[in-house]
């Protein structure tokens, strides 16, 4: 066995605390070590070349690099040894930076520990086995979950690259929250003007199959080959006959009686409805919870919608359908929901009608909204308006410690729009910190102040009512004085939380969540659109609160990763997976329960467990739990780990 060992200084990160020369002299004495060298930056080109040269000239069997965390540079060095003709799994890394030099001060002891760590890696390296990746074919299609702006952009980008996309949206129309907005900050673009053309593009795109009013039921398989079951909920309207003329909606006995979800309950709809006039597809849907016919089996003498529809599109016998599709990649774009401020009782949301949320106010501005775009709050034009920032954000008490990132700016925008509609309005924004970080945001913040919006640092403590008038109490923290303001309207700058759909989707795909409950990306800096599950990507607010430009950018990023994957005919599957020795397996099925990825399948015929290599992530849970040692983890075999441990004890 000829092992080459390479100790990195990491600039001075390691060599300041660890005596590299001493480590080299100790390690060189090991019988299996053929060569041991050090270098300032082992990850650099000359460093890699040093290793490659030794492999070629000395005919090394194994390589050990003692440097930083394998998370950082294992892929780098695996690539380097492979280029020099060695199997990449014959490479082993000792972490003497994060696990040694960065956490110790005593140079002598740190040096001893570094030497021990390297020696134990050498012991393990001697037992490493060459592994070969297997090829997995790729299905050239993608699934996008969520039809908001993130899903729309992702679907369009993938479809434009020539791959088929299934876009699944649980609501009757795509558009998401963006469709609810009137204007967008800081450019004051009309949201509908920039969004609706994209919605139409989606509907017309030959490569996109739009599945609205549908939910993902189950997902099986792994990167390159996912099998997805999609449940299409019955609309009770035949979409191929419906022209979206709306005669049915006007005729419905319940018209104007049911709070519209799209209008945040401020406007009313009937039992047969489209969420909003620009809906895509512009096809009607019957609400089964409300429709008299569907709930009680009768609607007067006969359902008025049926009478009104010239096309005979209404069909009460519709049932749900299950659609099964195969895709190679999945993008999760499940978006966000608005924080429900009811639990922040001091703000009296739900008690006083004139305390409303940001999203509710958004509908007031919309020309298609409940007031037709007029600034009317419960029938009156408000003159004194207070905005409260950080409601449901930066708040540990309610479990949302994060900043929601968009509230500062949507408050500025809404304050501007109110001022525009009510020039004599007295508008105050109570804020914690002003976060105007995006392009043009700071400028917009300045602009609204010039328009007469008062910004007072210090957030609202409470809202109370006296003689029918709302009052907001706060401290102006820049003056250090508590004060109170009367208000006809209090707008809560409610934050963002992951949408309800995230739970089920996350579960199906085994996605991790970060502490803020949004989906966890594979790396916060370098892999913000990937997840730890190969072939599953994130777009938009599903990954964390985002404004529209960031959402669109991430959506395109996710699309590019999908296209990158779909452009290959086969992909290589990671060989560090668990394997079952079927001669030893007793079929107790403990491993099956423990697998977080559902990679295990029981072979009833032979009474033994099998593991799908394409799904297995190599976490090792099953191997650790197997009582008879029938499961072995490639690259982390018991013998390899024991050798490593014995060397340090």
């Amino acid at each position, binding site marked *: 066995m000829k092992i080459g060992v390479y100790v990195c200084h990491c600039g001075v990160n390691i060599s300041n605390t660890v005596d590299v020369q001493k480590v080299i002299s100790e390690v060189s004495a090991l019988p299996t070590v053929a060569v041991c060298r050090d270098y300032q930056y082992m990850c650099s080109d000359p460093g890699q070349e040093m290793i490659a040269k030794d492999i070629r000239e000395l005919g090394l069997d194994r390589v050990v690099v003692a440097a930083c965390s394998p998370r950082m540079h294992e892929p780098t060095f695996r690539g380097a040894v492979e280029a020099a003709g060695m199997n990449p799994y014959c490479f082993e890394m000792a972490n003497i930076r994060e696990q040694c030099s960065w956490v110790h001060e005593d140079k002598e002891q740190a040096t001893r520990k570094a030497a021990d760590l390297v020696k134990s890696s050498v012991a393990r390296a001697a037992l490493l086995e060459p592994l070969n990746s297997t090829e997995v074919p790729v299905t050239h299609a993608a699934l996008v979950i969520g039809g908001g702006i993130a899903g729309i952009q992702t679907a369009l980008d993938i479809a434009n690259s020539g791959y088929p996309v299934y876009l699944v949206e649980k609501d009757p129309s795509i558009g998401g929250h963006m469709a609810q907005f009137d204007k967008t900050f800081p450019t004051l673009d009309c949201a509908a003007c920039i969004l609706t053309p994209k919605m139409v593009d989606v509907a017309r795109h030959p490569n996109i199959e739009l599945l609205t009013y549908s939910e993902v039921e189950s997902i099986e398989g792994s990167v390159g080959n996912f099998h997805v079951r999609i449940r299409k909920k019955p609309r009770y309207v035949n979409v191929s006959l419906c022209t979206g003329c709306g005669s049915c909606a006007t005729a419905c006995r319940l018209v104007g009686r049911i709070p519209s979800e799209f209008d945040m309950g401020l406007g009313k709809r009937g039992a047969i409805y489209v969420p909003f006039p620009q809906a895509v597809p512009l096809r009607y849907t019957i609400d089964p919870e409300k429709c008299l016919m569907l709930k009680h089996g009768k609607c007067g003498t006969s359902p008025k919608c049926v009478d009104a529809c010239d096309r005979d599109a209404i069909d009460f016998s519709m049932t749900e359908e299950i659609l099964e599709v195969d895709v190679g990649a999945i993008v999760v774009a499940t978006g966000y929901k608005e924080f429900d401020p009811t639990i922040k*009782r*001091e703000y009296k949301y739900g008690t006083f009608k004139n305390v409303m949320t940001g999203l509710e106010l958004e509908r007031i501005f919309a020309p298609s909204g409940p007031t037709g775009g007029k600034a009317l709050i419960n029938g009156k034009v408000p003159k004194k308006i207070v905005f409260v920032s950080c409601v449901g954000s930066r708040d540990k008490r309610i479990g949302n410690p994060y900043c929601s990132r968009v509230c500062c700016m949507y408050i500025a925008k809404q304050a501007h729009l109110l001022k525009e509609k009510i020039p004599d309005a007295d508008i105050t924004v109570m804020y914690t910190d002003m976060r105007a970080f995006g392009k043009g945001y700071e400028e917009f913040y300045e602009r609204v102040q010039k328009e007469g919006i008062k910004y007072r640092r210090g957030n609202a403590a409470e809202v109370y009512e*006296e003689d029918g008038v709302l009052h907001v109490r706060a401290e102006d923290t820049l003056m250090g004085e508590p004060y109170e303001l009367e208000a006809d309207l209090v707008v809560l700058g409610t934050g963002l939380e992951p949408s309800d759909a995230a739970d089920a989707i996350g579960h199906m795909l085994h996605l991790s969540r970060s502490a803020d409950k949004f989906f966890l990306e594979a790396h916060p800096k370098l892999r913000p659109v990937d997840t730890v599950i190969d072939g599953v990507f994130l777009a938009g607010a599903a990954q964390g609160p985002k404004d529209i430009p960031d959402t669109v950018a991430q959506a395109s990023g996710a699309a590019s990763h999908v296209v990158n994957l779909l452009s290959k005919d086969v992909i290589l599957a990671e060989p560090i997976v668990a394997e079952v020795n079927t001669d030893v397996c007793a079929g107790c099925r403990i491993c099956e329960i423990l697998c977080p990825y559902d990679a295990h399948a029981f072979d009833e015929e032979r009474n033994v467990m099998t593991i799908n290599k394409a799904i297995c992530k190599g976490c090792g849970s099953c191997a650790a739990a197997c009582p008879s040692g029938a499961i072995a983890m490639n690259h982390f075999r018991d013998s390899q780990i024991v050798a490593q441990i014995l060397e340090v004890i």
Partner: protein
Amino acid sequence: MDYAFFPGCIAKNVYPGIEKATRIVFEKMNVGLHDYPYSCCPPPGVVACYDKDTWYALGARNLALSEPDNRDIMTICAGCYGTLHNVWHELQHNDAKRAYVNEHLGRIGMTYKGTSRPIHFVDLLDGMRDTITQNKEVDLDLRVAVHYGCHYLKPTTVTGENSESPMLLDEIVGLVGCKSIPFKDRLTCCGAGGGVMSGEPELSLKIMERKLKNIKKADVDCIVNICSFCHMNFDQSQKKLESFDIPVLHLNQLLGLAFGVKHKHLGLHMNLVSTRDLVKKVKGAKKGRDEE
């Protein structure tokens, strides 16, 4: 049902009517109250603010007294409750503090185990709504302003209460025919706590004055509290401010009236703010009922 009874120094030594009312009301409801040689809680505003360790030790002494009899401790003052419950809560999970307390109690032959829990009497009443209704002789038909007392509600991490929109006290006065009238800032502090009443009487009075103005606007027959210390502040401050005359009743005094107890037995005549008109109104209600 038996409890160790912790009257607290105000109800014993300043407004004995509260102690008396409590004894009568709970006897009527068949709850046994037992006396122990309690010191005062000790007061959070003075002792805790001067030296918390002393506060823990003296509080633990009180808590330990009924441990041999396995009796939980009923308090009738938010201040006492605040002290005893906070001490109990802290000693439940702070082993170092518990050891400290026991080291000192050991000097006088006592040990603190934490087996007797302090309970505020309103929480007890919460589970006795039927008993209250059964004992009711008069529907009082009063407009009342309720006052919860900060240390009964907060900190909620210790009390587990809802500090922004509590309804318990409002519901209990409702059981005896009273209507709890909402008023501005109904949950704010009366101004007595934290040693402010004794250390800075003028500030305390300002806080109280604002509170009283809000109550006055609500046009109520009386203020009902569940804290002897707040009770004292409400009553004495009105005398000092001279522009208010809203009778102040501890909840147990109100329940006493509803249970048909004579107002003199409840010590209502000992208040600085006259309760005469209120008593007259209740008598009217009682008479009306008798005549029916």
